[in-house]
C-alpha cells in the first residue's frame, strides 16, 4: 500500500491578500494577522485532498497535527495517521522540516505539501531530493517549479502517482527568494536546490514521432558539444538541462552553480562572478550556455546571477546559447522566456527571438522578454 505524507504550511501566503509579500519572519506574520489576514493554504490543500480521498481505501496517509495537515485531511474524508507535535497557531519553518524528516523515516512514497517558496525550501533542506514531492500552490507568486498548476491538478497528479500510473519524475528548481528584497519591489533569487516532482505524462504516440524528454535532453547535449568551437570558453550555467552537457563530457559539474570548460576540458567548477569575468577577460573568446530556471522560465536572473551583465557584455550578446527541453517550452506557452540580469538596458537589448536548442539538430524559435506580459 502506498503511503502519502501531507504537510500544510498554515501561514503560507498569509501576507498576500493584505498586500504584504511573503510571510517570513515573526514580525511580518504578526502584522499580517493584525490586518485580519487568513491563509489560503488550508483551503487549497483541502481542494487537492478531496481528490486524493477517492483513493482512501488504497493508500495510507501520514500527516502533522491540526492546521498542519490533520484538519484538512479529515475534512477531505481521509483517516490519516498523525505524527509529531506542534504549537497550534504558532507554527514555524522548523515544524515543516521536522514533519518532512519524520515522514521520510516513515517511508512515505510521496509528500504532498501546500505552501510557497519558503515551504519548498524547508522541505528540501530537511530531506533533499530523497523522496518525490508535489506542491499545492498556496502562497503569493511562486518562483519554485515544484508546484502543480492548481490544487485540482496537484490532487490529480498525486493520485496517478499513488496508483502507480504512468507519470514522469522531473527535477524541479527550488528557488531561494530574498523576501526582504521582494517586499521592496526587487526580485533577488538564488537557486536553492532541486526536488523530484511527479508530472502527468501524456501517452506519446509514435505516429507523431515524439520522444521522451530525457532522450531529447541527451540529444541537445550532443548537439551543443558537436558544435563547440575550439579555443573558446564555454560557460555552463546551472540547471539539469545544462548538466547533461557536462555529464556527456564526463566532467564534474555543479548543479546549482556555474562551470567553465575549454576544448572539452574542465577549467573551473562553481565560479564566482569575479572569477568568471577574469577568465573571459584573459581568454577572450567565450560562449554562455544557459537554460530556463524557475517557474517563470528565467534565462537570466534566477539562480545564475554569477553571469552578470558585465560578464554577458564581455562574452558578447551574440554568444549566448539557450538550451531547454521542448516540453519545458510548451509548458511555458504562451509566455516568453524571461531575462532579469539586473541591468534594465541589457534586458531590453536581449528582447527578441532566440533559437533554443531542444534536441539533436532540433531547435525552437522562442520569444525572450524582460516582461512577463
Amino acid at each position, binding site marked *: 500500500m502506498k503511503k502519502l505524507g501531507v504537510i500544510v504550511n498554515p501561514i503560507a501566503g498569509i501576507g498576500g491578500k493584505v498586500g504584504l509579500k511573503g510571510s517570513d519572519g515573526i514580525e511580518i506574520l504578526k502584522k499580517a494577522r493584525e490586518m485580519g489576514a487568513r491563509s489560503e493554504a488550508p483551503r487549497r490543500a483541502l481542494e487537492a485532498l478531496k481528490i486524493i480521498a477517492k483513493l482512501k481505501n488504497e493508500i495510507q496517509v501520514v500527516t502533522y497535527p491540526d492546521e498542519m495537515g490533520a484538519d484538512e485531511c479529515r475534512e477531505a474524508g481521509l483517516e490519516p495517521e498523525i505524527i509529531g507535535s506542534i504549537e497550534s497557531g504558532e507554527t514555524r519553518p522548523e515544524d515543516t522540516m521536522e514533519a518532512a524528516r519524520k515522514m521520510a523515516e516513515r517511508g512515505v512514497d510521496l509528500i504532498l505539501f501546500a505552501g510557497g517558496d519558503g515551504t519548498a525550501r524547508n522541505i528540501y533542506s530537511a530531506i533533499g531530493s530523497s523522496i518525490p514531492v508535489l506542491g499545492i500552490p498556496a502562497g503569493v507568486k511562486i518562483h519554485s517549479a515544484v508546484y502543480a498548476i492548481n490544487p485540482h491538478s496537484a490532487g490529480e497528479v498525486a493520485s496517478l502517482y499513488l496508483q502507480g500510473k504512468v507519470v514522469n519524475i522531473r527535477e524541479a528548481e527550488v528557488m531561494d527568494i530574498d523576501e526582504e528584497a521582494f517586499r521592496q519591489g526587487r526580485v533577488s533569487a538564488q537557486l536553492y536546490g532541486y526536488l523530484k516532482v511527479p508530472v502527468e505524462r501524456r*501517452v*506519446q*504516440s*509514435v*505516429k507523431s*514521432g515524439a*520522444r*521522451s524528454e*530525457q*532522450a531529447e535532453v*541527451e*540529444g541537445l547535449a*550532443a*548537439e551543443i558539444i558537436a558544435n563547440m568551437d575550439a579555443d573558446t570558453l564555454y560557460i555552463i550555467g546551472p540547471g539539469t538541462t545544462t548538466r547533461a552537457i557536462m555529464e556527456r563530457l564526463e566532467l564534474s559539474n555543479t548543479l546549482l552553480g556555474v562551470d567553465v570548460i575549454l576544448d572539452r576540458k574542465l577549467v573551473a567548477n562553481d565560479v564566482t562572478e569575479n572569477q568568471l569575468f577574469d577568465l573571459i577577460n584573459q581568454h577572450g573568446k567565450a560562449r554562455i550556455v544557459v537554460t530556463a530556471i524557475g517557474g517563470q522560465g528565467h534565462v537570466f536572473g534566477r539562480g545564475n546571477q554569477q553571469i552578470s551583465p558585465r560578464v554577458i557584455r564581455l562574452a558578447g550578446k551574440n554568444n549566448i546559447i539557450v538550451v531547454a527541453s521542448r516540453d519545458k517550452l510548451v509548458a511555458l506557452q504562451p509566455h516568453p522566456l524571461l531575462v532579469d540580469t539586473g541591468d534594465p538596458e541589457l534586458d531590453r537589448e536581449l528582447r527578441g527571438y532566440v533559437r533554443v536548442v531542444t*534536441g*539533436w*539538430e*532540433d531547435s525552437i524559435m522562442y520569444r525572450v522578454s524582460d516582461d512577463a506580459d
Partner: protein
Amino acid sequence: MHKKPIVYPYIPNSVPEIKEAMMKEVGVTDPMQLYEEIPEHLKYHKEMQLPKPILDEYSIRRHTEELLGKNKTCGEHLSFLGAGCAQHFVPAVCDEINGRGEFLTAYVGESMGDHGKWQALFEYCSLMGELMDMDILSIPMYDGGQAAASSLRMANRINDRKKVLVPATMSPDIFLIVQNYLNSVPAPEIQIVKIGFDANTGLMDLNDLKNNLSTDVSAVFIENPSYLGFIETQAEEIGKLAREAGAEFVVYTDPISLGVMEAPANYGATIACGDFHTLGLHLGAGGCQGGFIATHDDMKYISEFKDLMFGLTDTMQEGEWGFGEVLFDRTSYGSRDKGKEFTGTSTGLWAITAGVYLSLMGPQGMQEVGTTIMQNCQYAAKKISELPGLKVQLSSPGFKEFVVNFDMTGKSVAQINKHLLEFKIFGGKDLSIEFPQFGQSALYCVTEVHQHKDLDKLVYALQGAVSC
C-alpha cells in the same frame, strides 16, 4: 437564366435549402464570406480548367471501364514479369476481407473501438514473425525498398558506423531508394559500396567483400533470393564475416520462399526485411507492395524501429485482450541523439491481407507453394536452356526467377518481347540497360500460377521469336 445548382451525392449539404439554412446559422449570405480570413489577393478568382464532370454513376463507371479496357492484363496474357512484383495466386478470402468496408475505411482509432484492426495487425506481425522466425516486427512500410532503406539506417543508429556494403546484383530500383534515403546534408551521411559478383554464378565475390570489410562498415546487405533470381548460397558465410567485423547483417528476402527456404534469422541475419506483396496481393499495377522489417527480441533493435508497434496487453475487464502502443522512452538503448526517421500512413490494409493469406496457407501451404514455384521455375529454365541460341545466364539455383541470355540469337530482348506479345505473352524484364555486362538478357519469373501448358507455350513462342 439562373442555372439550377447541382446536388452532388457525395456532398449532401449541397441541397440548396439546407445550405441556405446553414449559412444563415453561421451568419453569411454568400459562401465566399466563409473565407474572409483568406486575403483577397490570395484567393483564386479564376475557374479551374478541369474536364467537364461525368455526374452520373453509370457514365463514370462506363468511362472508367473504357479507360481501363485500354490495358492488357496478366489475366488474358501470359506473364513472366517479376523483378520485385510477381504474380501469385490470391485466395478469394483475401479479397473478401480487404474488401470489408470497416477495414477499408478505418484509420487511427484507438484500441477499444478499433479492437479488430489492432488485432488484425497484431496477427499480421505475429504470423510474419513465425515465417521469419523472429520475435519483433513493426507495422508495415510503403514497400520493400523502404524496408531496406530503413533497415540500413537502423544499423547505422545501432553501431554509429558510416558505410554499408551491398551486392552489385541488387535491385537497381531499391538501390536508388536506399541511396536517396541514406543521403544527407551537406553530404551523404552513409556511404554505399557495391560489392562485385561472379559473372557465371551471380554469387557475391567474397574476396571483394573481405577487402571492403572494416570497422567502419555498419551493415552488409544481401538479397536472398537475389533480384536476379539466384539463391545466395554463401549467405551464411557472408553473415559470419559481417558479424565478425562488428557489422549488422541485413537480409532482404521474399516471404513466399520461406516455406522451403530457411528464414534469414537462422543463417545469421540480425535484421531481416523485404516486400510482402507476394502474400495474397494482386499485381495492382505496382500498388500492392508492402514492406516489413523483423529482428530478434533485443532492446538494442526494438528501440530503433521507426514505426508503430502494437503490444499485447490486458484491459480493465478480466480475461480480455487489449493493445497498447509500444514506446521506447525508458530504454537506455538506441540512438539518443538521432530521431528515428519518420512514420506515417503506409500499407495497413495490405498487411491485414498478408495476415489472412498466411492464416489460410498454414505451414503446409507455404511448403507446397514454395515447392511448386521451384519445380515450375526449374522446368521452365530447363526447357528454355534447351532452345538453340538461348542460355540461362547464371548457373546458381534460383527460387522463382532466372536470367535468360539472348546474345547468340542476334536479337535484342526488345525484339524478342515484341514477338512474344503477338502470342499474348509478356516476356521477362529487359535487363540490358541495368546489367549491360549480361548483354541482351531478360529476367524471367515463373511461379505457382503457371501451368504446364503455359510453360510449353512460352517455349514454343520463344522458339518462334528466335528463329524468325
